[in-house]
């Protein structure tokens, strides 16, 4: 412990950093640009833990934190924002009931809520397969923020948050999703990359767009099942 302490930044600096990250997450600028080479998972768990920035809530050493950051080379990181013409409270409430997510997230089969923090996710994988993992909510600020991360035994490490913020004018609520996932190597990694689409940016964008349609228009626009000439 003695040793670890010596490589850490003073507590006041940590608090300052925390504040800065919290304001980046809550603010109007690009989050991923702000985070740069910090792992999103590290930041989210740190903010939730209220100060254990460099060790993380799971007691990772400084060295491990650096390794996490190095691994970011392979990480897929996405940030997307959409404005929805509804109060933040409505949007938060719909999202916070995680079982609603598969209605607008096409790649999900189901989300099962285990307890207030823990949930079990099943996603469609190629060739009729499914992949499953557990996730924990690491931060839950009603009407403002939901942050989650997968548990350590998840086949794909993924973390993210959705943030609701009143928009300028009377346009409703800015909904921002930031996600990071680490595909494992090998066959499984390739399969998972497919799961999140060739263009994860576009997939998350599409999901947010469907969320918006559902919240504003009461249905998701579709042409599936309409007639077509031969």
């Amino acid at each position, binding site marked *: 412990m003695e040793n670890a302490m010596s490589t850490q930044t003073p507590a006041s600096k940590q608090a300052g950093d925390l504040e800065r990250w919290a304001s980046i997450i809550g603010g109007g600028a690009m989050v991923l640009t702000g985070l740069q080479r910090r792992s999103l998972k590290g930041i989210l768990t740190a903010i939730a833990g209220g100060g254990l920035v460099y060790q993380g809530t799971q007691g990772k050493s400084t060295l491990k934190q650096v390794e996490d950051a190095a691994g970011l080379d392979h990480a897929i990181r996405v940030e997307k924002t959409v404005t929805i013409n509804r109060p933040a409270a409505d949007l938060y409430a719909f999202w916070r009931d995680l079982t609603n997510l598969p209605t607008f997230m096409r790649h999900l089969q189901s989300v099962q809520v285990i307890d207030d923090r823990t949930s079990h996710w099943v996603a469609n994988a190629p060739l009729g397969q499914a992949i499953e993992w557990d996730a924990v909510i690491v931060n839950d600020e009603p009407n403002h923020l939901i942050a989650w991360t997968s548990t350590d035994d998840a086949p794909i490490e993924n973390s993210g948050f959705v943030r609701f913020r009143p928009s300028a004018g009377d346009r409703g609520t800015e909904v921002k999703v930031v996600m990071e996932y680490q595909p494992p190597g090998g066959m499984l990694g390739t399969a998972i990359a497919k799961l999140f689409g060739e263009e994860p940016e576009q997939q998350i964008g599409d999901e947010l767009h469907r969320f918006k349609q559902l919240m504003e*228009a009461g249905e998701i626009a579709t042409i599936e099942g309409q*007639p*077509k000439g031969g």
Partner: protein
Amino acid sequence: MKAVCWHGSQDVRVDTVPDPKILNPHDAIIKVTSTAICGSDLHLYDGYIPTMQSGDILGHEFMGEVVETGPEVTNLKQGDRVVVPFTISCGNCFFCNRDLWSLCDNTNTNAWMAEKFYGHSPAGLFGYSHLLGGYAGGQAEYVRVPFANVGPLKVPDGLSDEQVLFLTDIFPTGYMAAENCDIQPGEVVAVWGCGPVGQFAIRSAMMLGAERVIAIDRIPERLALAEAAGAEIINYEEMDAGVALKEMTGGIGPDCCIDAVGMEAHGTGAMALYDTVKQAVRMETGRAMVLRQAIVACRKGGKVSVPGVYGGFIDKMPMGAFVNKGLTMRSGQTHVHKYLRPLLERIRNGDIDPTFLITHRLPLEEAPHAYKIFRDKEENCIKVVLKPFATTPELAGAAT
């Protein structure tokens, strides 16, 4: 059912396809009694709009009778007679709330694709490519209408299909084109293109107080129809339209210039050849002769209104003229929902009788022929109305 399907450039066929079904809670199914072919359909017909797929059902100007409604449709019931805007709008988003219906955020099923092309996605449209939603169109016996509480307008008794059909698109389009000019008393409005949109733009400009309207085209029967409405005319094949406009306006230029032609403008001279070649090899997606001419002809500080459709890129935009003459330009797919009721009122009180435009009434089966004569301006064709369920005597009778 029978439907007019796109199969490729200049290849439309009447196919037998499954009937449409309710897919979403706010859907309605309409039995189509009248449906028209639009100049916009010609851009699809000629293969200039990307993301069409073989078998796509065409048609965005249609009306008919409600035969089925989804569980959340409260405004309509079976048997109602309705006209349907060509733009599909949710009624609840930022844009719908501000009367910008063709910019609805929630109806394009392929919004991501449009975002790549345009930065943001406009509304979905009936029968107008997958870039704009891929919705099956209304040149068919039946059509599915999403957001049926929001779009369709019930037709009051005593008005025929032909009197109200053009509320679906071209009357509002011509009207919005004129409205976008913000016409002041004493102003002169020039309208390029005397097709259906141009004809409604001419008449709308007059309704909105233009002192003079000058109409430009080369097709004699279209020019004659413009003249009949009280417009002065320029046949651009007989004289340079730009020069003529300057002469006819005391050297000042028209206060308002409306491009009711769009990306398939026909032209003469070197610039026209340049556009034709570049468009043919797809280096440019629009032939912008008219837009360029309108900007150069417009008086200083004047207004350019563009109802004509452009899908992608154009070359040699005279930005210098635009900036240095301090012009204003407005455009857009029409916010049809905004105009439905006020323009229905204009039809009812006799300000205008839209039936003046119709030259051909045909059964759905004759769509391939109809596309051809409309495109090539054969048989003096100006506007075709297809009647999927009419009997031969009805079609003959209506034509008299």
